[in-house]
Structure formats: structure tokens, C-alpha cells
């Protein structure tokens, strides 16, 4: 008697496992009639994504070395996560991703990078090269800010006055700044 009960238990467990292992199909087929109705389920997964756009090159020309040169630009950062969160990491073209400019011969000169999580700012949180600034939130509605706010963050690049005073006049210093945005 006990073995029979155990057998039923095993069979039930196997049946349950079979049901669990089977792919759930919601599709229904139509019957033969004056009308016929069939239905299917549809699913799609959208991963967390971000986008940064609206960036402009920074050009400090004929700056006055007695004061810091500052370039602030509003950019679009979009995130599709439930919190619209993102992190940002900046790297320069200097040694070990340093934020530096160079003319190719003279010593590289440093610049600073700041980030603000809202547009129209002239200062923000100072970024360290290669280190992610987390906990940022975007207000952008569309991925390129063509709908909703036209910009959602601020990038501020500056060269301090002492640095400017160390630079050779008439020489062009150049470098690249790369920004990586990741969903959070």
C-alpha cells in the first residue's frame, strides 16, 4: 500500500516536473465555423540602454591667462532604466587616460572635467580620469532629446590660470576627451 502511494507520488512529481519543464504556450488555434479566432502571445525584452549626444568640441582660443578658461556645454544624456539612472566615466588622451593637452613636444598641460546632472550649469562634480561617477539621473525623454528637454546634463571643461600661464603663446595644444555613459 505504502509502495503504491509512493509510486503515485513519484508519478505526480514527474508529471509536475514535466509541466514545469514544458514551454508555456499561450497560442490558441481557431475552430471551423462562420468565424474563426486564433491568438498568440508576444514578448520582447528591452535591455537597459543609454545615449549621450549633443557634444561639441571645445576650443579655447586667445584666452586670457590671468583667469581660468571655462567651457560649459549642455548635452543630452538619456537612460531607459526604471530610474533613468546612469554613470559617467571620462578619459583623456594623456598618459594613463589623463586629462591633458599637448602640442607634441612641450610638457602636457592638464585640464579639469566637471559633470552636472542637469543642463545649463557652469560647474559640477569634478571627474577623475577613468573613474565612474555613479548615481546620475537623466531627465531626457527621448534618446537624442528631440522630444522633451533639449539637454539633460552639463559638461564643464576648464584650464586653470596657472596652467594657462605655463603654456607657450602661439602654440596649439590639443587632446581628446572621451565620455562613457552606462545604465544604472
Amino acid at each position, binding site marked *: 500500500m505504502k509502495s503504491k502511494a509512493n509510486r503515485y507520488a513519484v508519478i505526480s512529481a514527474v508529471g509536475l516536473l514535466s509541466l514545469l519543464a514544458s514551454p508555456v*504556450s*499561450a497560442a490558441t488555434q481557431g*475552430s*471551423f465555423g462562420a*468565424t*474563426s479566432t486564433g*491568438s498568440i502571445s508576444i*514578448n520582447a525584452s528591452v535591455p537597459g*540602454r543609454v545615449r549621450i549626444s549633443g557634444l561639441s568640441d571645445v576650443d579655447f582660443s586667445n584666452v586670457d591667462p590671468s583667469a581660468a578658461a571655462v567651457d560649459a556645454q549642455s548635452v543630452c544624456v538619456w537612460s531607459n532604466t526604471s530610474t533613468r539612472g546612469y554613470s559617467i566615466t571620462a578619459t583623456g588622451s594623456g598618459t594613463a587616460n589623463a586629462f591633458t593637452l599637448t602640442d607634441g613636444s612641450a610638457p602636457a598641460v592638464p585640464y579639469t572635467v566637471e559633470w552636472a546632472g542637469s543642463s545649463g550649469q557652469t560647474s559640477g562634480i569634478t571627474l577623475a580620469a577613468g573613474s565612474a561617477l555613479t548615481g546620475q539621473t537623466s531627465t531626457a525623454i*527621448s534618446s537624442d532629446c528631440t522630444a522633451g528637454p533639449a539637454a539633460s546634463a552639463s559638461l564643464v571643461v576648464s584650464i586653470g590660470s596657472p596652467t594657462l600661464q605655463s603654456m607657450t603663446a602661439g602654440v596649439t595644444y590639443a587632446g581628446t576627451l572621451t565620455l562613457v555613459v552606462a545604465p544604472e
Partner: protein
Amino acid sequence: MRTSWAPGIHFARRLVVGLAIAIVLSAPALGQRVRVSGVTDLSFGMLAGFQSDQRQSQSICVYSNGQSSGYSISAWGSGSAGSFELSNGLNTLHYDVEWSPVSGQTTGTNVAPNVPLPGQISGADHQTCNTGPATSASLIVVLRGVDLAQAREGNYTGSLSLLISTE
């Protein structure tokens, strides 16, 4: 030599012929019927492309026993008022539905929710396509790039129903 009951037989013979014709004439016309089968659930999986349309199509069986094999199709989704929308519980993702009366197609005529698309002709020979062509129509579901570009993160699900009617 004719017997006296010959006129009776003649009358009976005419009556039988008359009844036979009457039976033929009064036989009810075979009702027009349709059937949709072979539909399967559809999964886009984890989407990778967001700048272009993402399409999924399936060949299915639509049978119509009408003289012209004609039918119309209506479709509705699980979104509000039958709209073609998937949901992740918080956000929705719109999709389009296209239909082709030919199997193996990846594009077709756009179908609006709850609006019949008339004038479709089935090439099926059997109500479940067990004989003749294995499928007779194409159902295409399209996630538009413009919608995907703005889609919020998540797993989206929904259902799509198809109503085939005689024509």
C-alpha cells in the same frame, strides 16, 4: 396491352421524379466556413537593434470553403481598446501588425486594431492545411525603430488575437 392501373403507375413515376427534384432543390446550401490554425507564440527575445524595425513573421493556415475562398481578417491586441501594445507592467511598447494572404512573407498590408481587412483569398485546400499547401497566409508583427529608440528597459508581453470571417 395496357392494364387498367397503368395511369396510376405513370402518375406514381412522375411523383417520384417530382419529389427527387424537390429534394435536390430544397437541399440547404453548405454553410461557408473558415478556420485559422497553425499560429504560434512569438518572441523577439532580447532586442539588440534599436534604430531599425524589428520584424517577426510566421506562416499560418487560413482556410475558407467559400466559392472564392475569400475571407476577411480582424486583429486586436491586449492593449487599451484592443490596441497593439505590449506591457511590462509600467510602460507600453507599441507594435504593428501586417497581413499577407500568401505564406512565407515578411511584409504585408498593415492591419489596424479591430478594423477588418477584407478581400483576402485563401490558397488552403484543407481546414488545417493537412493536405495541399502547409500554410496559406503570413502574420507579421513589427516593432518600429522609432518606438524601440524610446523604449524603457523591461520585459514586455501581450497577446494578439485574429478573427477570420467568411466573405
